[in-house]
């Protein structure tokens, strides 16, 4: 199993200074269990005395709040991304949406694959239209501000037009 778990900044030092931990499990609950066994310091931070996930911690699988799916029973599979996000802290782990417009000479290059590998970000294509000559992709980018900005600079540097998508974001 290979589930990517995004660790919020305040808990990073309890997870070996990692932003993203590769975890195991078939459900969100199992992944959280695996996390708290692998990094025992996370246990009391993520769960209360009754063993419930703390009220002001929200968990997302890919784009979806697990409360809208099957909560801790939500199944996860290889390549899924789990985000642990403090409900009212905001900031450190925001998803951002951008529209990328590719010039003809870049249409055939694996640009999105490249940014996912060069920088510590997770990309998720929300909508796209690519033809022979021109293409655009609306991309959701999850990751820390610094990595996000580096990815954006890289994209601009290779001639991709980057525009923020201001609407249509709800977490």
């Amino acid at each position: 199993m290979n589930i990517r778990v995004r660790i919020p900044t305040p808990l990073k030092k309890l997870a070996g200074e990692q932003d993203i931990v590769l975890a195991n499990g078939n459900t969100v609950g199992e992944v959280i269990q695996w996390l708290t066994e692998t990094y025992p310091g996370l246990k009391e931070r993520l769960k209360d005395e009754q063993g419930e996930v703390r009220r002001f911690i929200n968990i997302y699988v890919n784009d979806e709040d697990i409360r809208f799916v099957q909560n801790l029973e939500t199944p996860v599979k290889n390549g899924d991304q789990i985000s642990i996000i403090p409900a009212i802290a905001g900031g450190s782990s925001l998803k951002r949406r951008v529209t990328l417009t590719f010039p003809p000479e870049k249409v055939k290059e694996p640009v999105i694959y490249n940014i996912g590998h060069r920088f510590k970000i997770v990309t998720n294509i929300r909508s796209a239209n690519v033809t022979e000559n021109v293409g655009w992709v609306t991309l959701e980018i999850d990751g820390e501000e610094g990595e996000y900005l580096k990815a954006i600079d890289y994209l601009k540097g290779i001639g991709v037009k980057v525009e923020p998508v201001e609407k249509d974001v709800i977490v």
Partner: protein
Amino acid sequence: MSYIKGLKCRECKREYAIKPVHVCEFCFGPLEVVYDYDEIKKNLTRAEIEGRAKTMWRYRELLPLDSDPAVGRNVGFTPLIKADRLAEVLGVKELYLKNDAVNHPTLSFKDRVVSVAVSKAKEFGFEVISCASTGNLANSVAALAAEGGLESFIFVPHDLEKGKILGTLIYGTNLIGITGSYDEVNRLCSEIAENYRWAFVNINLRPFYAEGSKTFGYEIAEQMGWRTPRHVVVPMAGGSLITKIWKGFKELELIGLLDGVDSKIYGAQASGSNPIVAAFKEGIDWIKPQRPKTIAKSLAIGNPADGFYSLKTIRESEGSAEDVSDEEIVEAMKLLARTEGIFTETAGGVTVGVTKKLIDQGIIPRDESILISITGNGLKTQEAIQDRVGRPLIIEAKFSEFEKIVTPNQRKYRESIVQATI
């Protein structure tokens, strides 16, 4: 003399010193101010309060400042009105309005929270005040920052009502319209708050800011003769006000200024932005975020920060929650204006409309005391009703022209006056 002991996490109860923080670093729960109620009880009496100036600061022992307020010294103590004409229309015996549509200086209940937050920001030594706002907060932060001589940055959804934009810009602030919903504005502000040493009144100063809302509750209790109404209807956006009115009542009971609190608290939202009402009706204690669409823009928060605690307040007090459509909001605004002469904003249409609905449903009984919270002024949300109130009749300045437009019903007065002259 300050009675504040510190900050405490509402979830895991960990304690923190007084500083500009709002989230528990351990469990991410919200922080709340803790007071020394035993000492307050020894020192504060009804008579003492009654002898003070008629502002919200007459309850200063229960507010989180260390010194005298730096701004907003005249905020609060707005009218409590016995609304007999509206009561007759709604078919109820005893109805009151708490009218913060005329709060000083910016005509909404937000002046209560902002005067606390800006004063606290000055105590902390901040030089820039900021906020995420649906409009009323923007007006108030801009005004009170100006009074305090502080720079301000205000973030709002770009499509706010004109009155709220104008009523912010006039104070010489930096107003930034975000092309997105309030929830997106709020998220952006959380990020800015992590990177700039600014006092965000409803983010890093939230524990202090929110306390100002308690005075709305204190005033209701005092103005009713040191008792609380049996039924209290409160608008919900982020959900802070409803929890603080309840907290205010309970505190007065705790320090012996009320003999008991038998109030039921009702939460009111617009149908197009009803995440808290929906959770109440579903019987769950968590909020499903929404994308709001309603004319009640001041209540258009789809992911309310205090949603969980609002539900807790409603359930603990054995109240209820309801929402009304945009159409019902407009009708309720007109009803309030035409029965009581009070022009409230859309949020007031929401509370009046929800009260009517809860009475019609039999949830609020007709023979017990009811209080409706009016939290904002109608002049700020004119767009919502501009096509719904008719137009003036334009005529030439001639008596004959006037006579043409007088209806037969209105003519009867003319005749009676003519007879009286003869």
